[in-house]
């Protein structure tokens, strides 16, 4: 579904990604983790072309992201993305947040888009908030709306860029619950996250990054049980102590 081959990226002299390669097959859940500044977010933003890269190739459903001839808006409309800071549109009601891209990008009718949006809103447990505005919801609620907004586009896969990092501890679980459910339904997911509980529960593979490189790309049992690299061992030791 997503294939990342030898991707490198630099800002001027600063190398952000070096020769990264990995695959996400249909129905798989991949968790990307690593220390801050390791390039995880940059890598996931390369997947839907939000960040350009200088060499290597990324294909999503067989379509090359880096090819200048690719219709990026069309490709992006098929790839759901959830951001650290939710990024709902503050001037629109929750209903409009859920329907606007369906209407303007997919050309769905207003009623159809609203119905679909409300169904998904119900699914993330927020039906009662349809007429509110993003600023009136808690962080966890906003993030669940953001997931519903991405799902409303019927994506072929979902990208999560640290979806729980900006949340209060109490709200993390409500978002993770939605993500776990989604994973169990067979959604193809690439998640940048430090939630190791989530990773243990649903991930097929863990990609561990450090200094712009993919240091480890392993199934979760070997990663948690017996990390091969010293760097991953240190990282796990630090985040799993408490």
């Amino acid at each position, binding site marked *: 579904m997503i294939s990342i081959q030898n991707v490198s990226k630099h800002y001027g002299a600063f190398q952000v990604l070096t020769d990264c390669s990995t695959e996400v097959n249909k129905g798989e859940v991949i968790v990307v983790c690593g220390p801050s500044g390791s390039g995880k977010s940059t890598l996931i*933003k390369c997947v839907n072309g*939000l960040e350009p890269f200088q060499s290597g190739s990324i294909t999503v459903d067989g379509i090359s992201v880096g090819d200048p001839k690719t219709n990026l808006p069309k490709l992006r409309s098929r*790839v759901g993305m959830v951001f650290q*800071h939710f*990024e709902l549109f*503050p*001037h629109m009601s929750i209903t409009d947040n859920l329907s606007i891209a369906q209407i303007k990008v997919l050309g769905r009718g207003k009623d159809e888009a609203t119905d679909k949006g409300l169904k998904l809103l119900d699914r993330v447990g927020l039906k009662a908030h349809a007429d509110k505005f*993003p*600023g009136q919801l808690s962080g966890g609620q906003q993030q669940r709306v953001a997931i519903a907004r*991405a799902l409303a586009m019927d994506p072929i896969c979902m990208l999560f860029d640290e979806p729980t990092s900006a949340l209060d501890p109490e709200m993390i679980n409500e978002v993770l619950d939605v993500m776990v459910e989604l994973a169990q339904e067979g959604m193809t997911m690439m998640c940048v996250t430090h939630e190791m509980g989530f990773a243990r529960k649903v991930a097929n593979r863990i990609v561990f990054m450090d200094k712009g490189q993919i240091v480890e790309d392993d199934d979760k049992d070997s990663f948690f049980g017996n990390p091969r690299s010293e760097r991953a061992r240190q990282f796990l030791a630090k985040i799993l102590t408490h």
Partner: protein
Amino acid sequence: MGYQWNWSIFGSTVPTGETTYLAWLLSGLQVTVELSLAAWLLALALGSLVGVLRTVPNKALSGLAAAYVEIFRNTPLLVQLFSWYFVLPEILPFGLGDAFKQQLAPLTQQFLAAMLCLAFFTSARVAEQVRAGIGALPRGQKAAGLALGFTLPQTYRHVLLPMAFRLIVPPLTSEFLNIFKNSAVCSTIGLLELAAQGRQLVDYTAQPYESFIAVTLFYLLINVIVMALMRIVEARTRVPGYLGGK
């Protein structure tokens, strides 16, 4: 001081006999309002376009927009006005300059030059506000729009600009007020707007205090109305749960 106050001059008939001095002031007021409103609409449209262009990824477009802003923001309004009125008609190609001078009534010439001058001058300032408004939004908003499959223009139209304009209502109000005040400069090319009528009143009646007090009050009145209007705009567009909204 020996000054003879005489508030009744506004009701007196002008020497040519067809109207009163107050009517002169009111016709000036009308010119000021029409001129400024027309210039403001044009400035808002041009300024929004240029402000957006300043923020696009294309270097050529954003450079061009930056040059536009620097030219119109960094030269005096009076110099710009003289350029529009005296210089431009001389250098316009294809007989456009001659057509301007020969086929348009002198009043129309003055009004057009003044309107374009105020519009372009103000558009550069509006452009800076629009750019600042877009720049003040969280960076993820653009990414979120694009990630949903919006094209860049759609992202501006549906995601960035609606919030950017809400953020800049207060500075835009002040530009809107400025355009009325700046329009007084246009009396220098002979346009009979409010300030020019005020000066004419002084020449005819030798009552400078009354004339300029009246002119001042009219400008104040315009600006009080503008501020009230913009406050309504601000209240109407307020986003619930965001920036002072409920």
